[in-house]
């Protein structure tokens, strides 16, 4: 496993959003520490799941990796290139390889463009093929995501949520990317339609050899689709390991609580299960707690957790945790 080549290597990635006061003479009075010094790698052909509660910085991480937000500091290595220090032309070329599928299929498709134009847009931007070739390519893409190529002249409002998400997938695939950030691609979909989209993503990964960063808050779906899973809390990674290890040998108290909070569709199991219920709510990332950021809600916190920030360390092969008490 260790020899697998990393496709993307993220080192000490930081993204702060400034909080300003004043309209004309803006003064920075603080910062939302959305992503605060995280490092991980995404290996060729794998699906890395990224989970956490809303506001923990998981979407910001995805967007910062793609340079849709310019990071405050840190590096994102793609092959031999550091995307952070690369110039705009290089990034623009590399965007062919790295794509994104957005969360909300209602907001991420332009309602005034036909499906054909939406999917052809990346091809136009990168000046690939002529009008006719593009149209053929769009038809192929529609077929690839199990949509009828006759839909090419329709508008987004004529489609259901699941179908729209497929259009989003087709657009992401237009340039034959190697890596796709899936930013909560199924959260907005109905239960009976979620499986359709997830199966499609898995099928495409097998056929096209794609690598995914799969961002979600639904742990059961992440468990289903991912090879490795990273858990995030308030801008920090708290645990990162393979899927099976994460569930069979959970180390971080936050991960434990998160797993136990997910309801299982089985009434017998639900009655017997011991649940860890976290008190309170997620603190503000503009003013995160000292030391370990989880200590205010942690059921096993000790005095050291309040003072010192835990180190991000590998406790056994390929299992990373940030906790003093592990």
């Amino acid at each position, binding site marked *: 496993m260790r020899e697998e080549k990393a496709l993307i290597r993220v080192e000490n990635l930081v993204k702060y959003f400034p909080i300003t006061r004043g309209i004309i003479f803006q003064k920075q009075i603080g910062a939302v520490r959305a992503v605060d010094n995280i490092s991980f790698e995404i290996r060729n052909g794998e699906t890395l799941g990224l989970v956490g509660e809303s506001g923990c910085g998981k979407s910001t991480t995805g967007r910062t990796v793609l340079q849709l937000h310019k990071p405050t500091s840190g590096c994102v290595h793609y092959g031999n290139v550091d995307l952070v220090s690369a110039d705009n032309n290089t990034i623009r070329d590399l965007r062919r390889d790295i794509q994104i599928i957005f969360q909300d299929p209602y907001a991420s498709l332009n309602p005034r463009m036909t499906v054909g134009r939406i999917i052809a847009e990346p091809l136009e931007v990168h000046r690939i093929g002529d009008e006719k070739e593009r149209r053929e390519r769009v038809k192929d893409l529609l077929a690839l995501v199990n949509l009828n190529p006759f839909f090419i002249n329709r508008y987004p409002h004529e489609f259901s949520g699941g179908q729209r998400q497929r259009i989003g997938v087709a657009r992401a695939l237009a340039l034959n990317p190697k890596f796709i950030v899936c930013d909560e691609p199924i959260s907005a979909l109905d*239960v009976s339609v979620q*499986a*359709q989209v*997830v199966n499609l993503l898995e099928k495409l990964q097998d056929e096209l050899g794609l690598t995914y960063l799969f961002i979600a808050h639904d742990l059961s779906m992440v468990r289903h689709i991912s090879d490795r899973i990273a858990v995030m809390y308030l801008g920090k990674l708290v645990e990162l390991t393979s899927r099976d290890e994460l569930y069979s040998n959970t180390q971080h108290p936050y991960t434990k609580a998160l797993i136990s909070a997910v309801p*299982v569709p089985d009434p*017998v199991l639900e*009655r017997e299960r011991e649940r860890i219920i976290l008190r309170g709510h997620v603190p503000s990332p503009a003013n995160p707690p000292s030391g370990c950021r989880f200590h205010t809600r942690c059921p096993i916190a000790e005095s050291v957790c309040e003072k010192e920030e835990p180190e991000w360390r590998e406790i056994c092969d390929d299992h990373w945790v940030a906790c003093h008490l592990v």
Partner: protein
Amino acid sequence: MALSCLEEVITLEDREVILDIQNLRTRFDTREGVVYAVNGITYKLGAGETLGIVGESGCGKSVSMLSVMRLLQVPPAKILADSIKFKDEELMSLSRTDMRRVRGNEIAMIFQDPMTSLNPVLTVGFQIKEPLKLHMGLSDEDATKRAAELLTLVEIPDAELRLDDYPHQFSGGMRQRAMVAIALACNPTLLIADEPTTALDVTIQAQLVDLVKGLQKELGMALIWITHDLGVVAGLAERVVVMYAGFVVEDALVDDLYGNPRHPYTSALLRSLPRMDGGSGEALEVIEGLPPDLLDEPVGCPFAPRCSFVKDKCLEQNPALEEFSPQHNVACWIDINTGEFK
């Protein structure tokens, strides 16, 4: 399982039926045509019972409850029912004034989105005190005292100080707790929770489910929990009603429903879910196609176009909800074990 069913049957028989819905139909007249949102649903609820209503968006689970509460605007809505009985009162024949006496008092409701269901320009305290003054005739002073008690009951710290806060000063989870406090203000006999945790994170969802469960035990009210999450219902409900396209397709005790689903939709839905505890890696079972368009008048079984057992009869005639075993009703022509007609 047979034994546990038997016990439940007895307890349910013992229970006084507090809500009895017979053949409720709700339609909306729109510019595009008539929307058939609820197409004849029938079920009963016992005092103190927890009922889960499960279904996808657009299946009529919320609309059916809003119809019972008469919170829909008529027109465009058109609510028809043979009878909706709450305790001994026929809700369908109540005047608007009389309905107002029941609503928020004996039947309370928590809504899905805690961001929009509280009034942003009124303090949380004012909004909790409103039903207390209106229904129970408390003075402002008494109402304030009771409101603080209620906020403490839903585990909001420094309750007395927080009464003067506005909703935007509360987090999502706290707002939903405040909604619970408002709903509980007049000791309702029935609490209807309409997807109260959908907008919340899993850890906050676990808190709220835990809280409502505890309060229900303490106060002994009946609870209807509407959700699309089969996991939440498994841990919470005693009985579950599964809805699809405005119809009740299956209705059973919770163990029965998950252990022995009899409707192809329920069964397929359960198999399409990834499990936290089960195996992973294999492809999820997919229910092909989409839920039907509610603008078409329903003909035949609503699930027939997506059903793997579909026969000609299913496309023509809609099966009625029939007893499969005591406390377990299914609306399907087919026996899903054999794939043949029953």
